[in-house]
């Protein structure tokens, strides 16, 4: 079924929006049309968490409660989901939700403006996790900024939830909501509104048809980058194809040679899946962005954006990942290394889309990856490095090294790799390899870091990687 309306569940009933503006931002809709002012606009770029709302989505006949940034979410992507706002947490008899009560009890609010966002992030954790370990608590609110409290009372509030009864009014009403969601989640959306087009296909074959007629359309995956065109540059996006509505592309498969990740799979799912293969991949994904970002952002989106500071990319390059492209007729498989052309330019042709990414499973190799930024949580890399090393009898065999933040594209360190390949692991060789990075990269100065600092840490990260291997322990301050 195709429709120009979107349906979503709000407060136990189905809401329909007729032919919405494809560029309308969810937060704007919440504040000006639903007239709910609890969700705040702090930055319009998903960087402060004040706008956090929770979306309920059906997954295995359960509801998956995802915290998202409503300030960078396009309204039509609400199709088929449940919208939960801070106002909805209070139960019908007026009692506060356990998360809200904990924030009151532990003095978690001072000025109070970031509080609804924190409440929603903690609510999502409350619904998804069972133990609330310290690192889970920190991760769950790593995308919420508070300028007043210094976070201590919020952490205390979150820890107190460990002993709380997990059955809330959402649990009690779950069946009803699932039924409502099932009524609305089986349709494709096509919107034409004031010269703006929006497509949310359900199947790849639909996508191909749409793509044929709308060759200039922008792919919207997580949209954590694309939406800034509207919110920051204040420009219209005339044609959007939403990829995350295609459940066929939401998968992680494994044939023992490689892990295949479908284009619309959110990063947060890859994060837990890949841990047993490449723990450092998971470590970097944790720092890719906040849960609100990782809940919607995808590997395919990160690749297609081709940002020099996309944190998945050095890892994928170093692992020799492949990207599967599709058009109407055929599939094409490219090594990621061949995919990036120049600053934010790729070999993705018009009419083509990324359908999946293949990440090789390497058994004897060591994969190490590091991210350096001004702040641990939710920051953009000054440098991100990934080292894929095969060391046999104190000798480097295959070596693949890639860096982000060092050039206009995420890039392999070819000269450095050459020095190391087939050399004995010695301080002298490592020193030479560090020096070779100067031939690989000429990093730039910007507000995040100077070029010379980037070069410095690029070298030092190689040293760190080798020292860790030699000493058989991790060296650093974040574990």
């Amino acid at each position, binding site marked *: 079924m195709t429709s120009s309306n979107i349906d979503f569940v709000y407060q136990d009933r189905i809401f329909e929006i007729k032919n919405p503006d494809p560029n309308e931002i969810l937060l704007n809709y919440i504040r000006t049309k639903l007239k709910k002012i609890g*969700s705040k606009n702090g930055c319009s*770029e998903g960087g402060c968490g004040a706008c956090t709302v929770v979306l309920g989505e059906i997954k295995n006949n359960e509801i998956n409660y995802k915290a998202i940034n409503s300030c960078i979410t396009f309204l039509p992507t609400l199709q088929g989901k449940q919208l939960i706002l801070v106002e909805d947490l209070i139960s019908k008899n007026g009692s506060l939700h356990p998360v809200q009560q904990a924030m009151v009890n532990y*003095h978690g609010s001072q000025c109070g403006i970031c509080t609804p966002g924190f409440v929603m992030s903690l609510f999502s954790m409350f619904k998804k996790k069972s133990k609330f370990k310290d690192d889970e608590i920190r991760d769950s609110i790593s995308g919420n900024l508070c300028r007043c409290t210094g*976070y201590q009372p919020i952490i205390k509030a979150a820890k107190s939830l460990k002993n709380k009864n997990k059955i809330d009014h959402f649990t009690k009403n779950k069946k009803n909501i699932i039924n409502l969601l099932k009524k609305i989640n089986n349709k494709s959306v096509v919107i034409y509104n004031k010269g703006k087009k929006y497509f949310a296909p359900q199947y790849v074959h639909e996508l191909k048809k749409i793509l044929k007629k709308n060759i200039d359309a922008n792919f919207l995956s997580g949209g954590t980058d694309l939406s800034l065109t509207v919110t920051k540059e*204040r420009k219209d996006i005339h044609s959007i194809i939403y990829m995350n509505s295609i459940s066929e592309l939401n998968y992680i498969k494994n044939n023992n040679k490689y892990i295949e990740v479908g284009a619309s799979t959110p990063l947060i799912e890859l994060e837990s899946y890949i841990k047993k293969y490449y723990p450092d991949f998971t470590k970097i994904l944790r720092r890719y962005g906040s849960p609100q970002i990782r809940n919607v952002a995808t590997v395919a989106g990160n690749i297609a954006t081709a940002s020099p500071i996309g944190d998945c990319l050095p890892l994928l390059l170093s692992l020799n990942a492949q990207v599967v492209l599709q058009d109407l007729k055929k599939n094409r498989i490219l090594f990621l290394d061949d995919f990036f052309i120049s600053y934010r330019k790729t070999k993705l042709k018009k009419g083509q889309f990324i359908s999946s990414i293949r990440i090789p499973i390497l058994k004897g190799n060591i994969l190490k990856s590091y991210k350096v930024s001004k702040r641990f949580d939710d920051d953009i890399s000054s440098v991100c490095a990934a080292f894929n090393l095969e060391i046999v009898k104190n000798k480097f065999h295959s070596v693949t090294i890639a860096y982000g933040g060092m050039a206009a594209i995420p890039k392999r360190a070819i000269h450095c790799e050459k020095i190391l390949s087939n050399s004995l692991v010695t301080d002298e060789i490592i020193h030479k390899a560090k020096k070779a990075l100067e031939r690989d990269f000429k990093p730039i100065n910007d*507000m995040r870091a100077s070029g010379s600092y980037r070069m410095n840490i690029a070298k030092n990260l190689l040293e760190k990687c080798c020292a860790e291997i030699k000493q058989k322990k991790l060296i650093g*301050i974040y574990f």
Partner: protein
Amino acid sequence: MKQETFINENRPHESAIKHVTGKAYYTDDIPEPPGTLYGAIGWSKKAHAIIKKINLDKVFKSEGVVAVVTSDDIPGRNDVGPVYDGDPIFPKKAEYYGQPLFAVAATTTELARKAVLAAKISYKTLKPITTIKEALKKKSFVLKERVIKKGEALKAIESSVHRLKGNFTTGSQEHFALEGQSAFVIPQEDNDFKVFSKTQHPSETQQIIAKMLNQKSNSITVETRRLGGSFGSTETQSFIFAAICTLLAKKTKRAIKLRVDRDDDIIITGKRHDFYSEYSVGFDELGVITGLKLKLASRCGISPDLSGAINERALLHVDNAYYLENVLVENYLCKTNTASNTAFRGFGANQAMMVIENIIDHIATTLNKDSAEIRRRNFYQKKKKNITHYNMKIEDNVIQEIYDQLIKSSNYKSRQLSIKKFNSENKYIKKGICFTPVKFGISFTTWHLNQAGSLVHIYYNDGSVHVNHGGVEMGNGVHTKIAQLTAHALGINFSKIKVSATTTDKVPNTSASAASSTTDLNGAATLNAISKIKMNLAAYVKRKYKIKNSEGIYENGMVKFKGKTFKFNKLIKEAYLNRVSLSSTGFYTTPKIHFDKKTFKGRPFLYFCYSAAVSEVMIDTLTGENKILRADILHDAGRAINPAIETGQIEGGFVQGAGWLGCEEVVWKTNGQITTHSPSTYKIPAVSDMPEKFNAEIFKKGINIENVINKSKTTGEPPLMNAMSVFFAIKNAIASIGNYTANPKLDAPATPEKILMSIKNLKRKI
């Protein structure tokens, strides 16, 4: 029955339930009347330029635009400068990148923001001054330089056993209150305007709008219910937005809401002053300072704004907790083509305290001694060495007691040893630890601002109480604390008290909610109002029941006079029926203070807040990444009205200070363009930046020896400075690389890059 006192207890914020349910209104949340329009501001893309032409044709034609305002629409004063002129609403000449040039009103915020981009502005570019050093060289100042002195600094330095010289920089800081600048204006009859402004200073907002419109102050009412954080960002910087919003309302005769986009907010408004200092210090073999010469230069931006008062507070805090016998300070207020820097928690004091702490640190590494011990040796003392460089005798000094208790409770000495051991065993990862003290003076240094008013009503129907006062609730908990004081003073339940929006038509001529004095001043004014109502009640009881000279004891909902006890509600109702006034204004002025700005002598402060922290950090010498492992804070809050609120301030201030000295870096290009104007480029501390172990304690023996409400001491600004311990712990970790024999050069903020650079430079030296 347990007597409820409502003070000295942990009570949730008065709006806590509204905060967690999303029902608390901030300016942008106030329901709008039909026909409301939305504003946006167009600003200069050049840091210094003559504006040749502003072509707004396309702006007018933009979708949804209803009106455009420029300087031509201002009937009165085209300036929002609080003390001096220099902050034009719409200037003739652009003096900084981001300076407002015009504004539009449109049918939605999105359309208004789109419309301003359609402006065509032609500039004749002039050379901007963008750094303190450049301004010093070109003698570009916003106010005249000043020199303060005590004793003979130069002679003392010359004749001292040891001498050191150096320079030091602390960076700027963006306030990043999660609620950005916003205003909402509704036109009223008679050309009056009702202004809802996100501001720490409703009274001055009123005055500035009146002057802009050439109207009387009584035609403008400014109301502020609560702020979503502020920290100084709306002590003056909110004025231009309230002014522009009113101008649009006047032009369109419709209500206007102006919520400034985060990037525009950061680009348009001023921030914390970055300071550059040069020092020359003499000291004896014990590390005790004998003479100090300082050059203190701050980046003020394009105008004086509050820079005069900020630099004055800096001059008053170059001593921090240390006795200085001979001091000479030259102070320069640099004019640069950047947004006019402004109030920010600490207000210059923290910058000056960093200067002296850096000097003490330098002395300690030079003598190869424990820096905490060198700090202790320089402390002010009780009976001697107790006169400040501005001739104020310190009578409430508890820094030694705080030092003793904290050094012990934090296990400073044994941790110092284990850190040294850790460092000798680890090549790449180093730890550091540091103790720093805080002494911070409380009162506005501008004498007349130390006054406050309040308005208290008791309603006869149910005995409920309405309080309005001049203070603004911005997360400081002022309304909660004043409600507690009121409940205590009247002996009635907290739930019967409503402390509501700060409004200029209820309490006039208020001072900004600033200088950490908001609760001290407004709490005292409220108690004054209550005591007047109590006097009315006592007079009535005396008259009616012939009870002699009894003031009445207000407890547990009862009022006891000698020989006669009333239920509170009953007394109130009876008093009403007997025509007794149940409403009163209250007023308070801070006693004892006086200060001669010319001679720089006097008693500018009623009292001092004392605090100290011990922080332990870990740094990665390969990358410069760093982390606070543990922070122990001991803070004198006197007899805290609400320890939970004070603890919140102590912890929050510390983390905010750690941001200032750590991950927060404001960056300008050489052309004056700011490049850190959103959370993606400007990083305030997030949850993982909180110390892994965080022990913030209130000094139990604390009591205010002055006559301040509840014998409490404020907590607003002083906790921020405890973060100095983090910075110097980082320096301590770096110094371990040279076996603590050489002094690392490290400027703030200590970003990973600065730390790595410091390590590199140190390695070259050793």
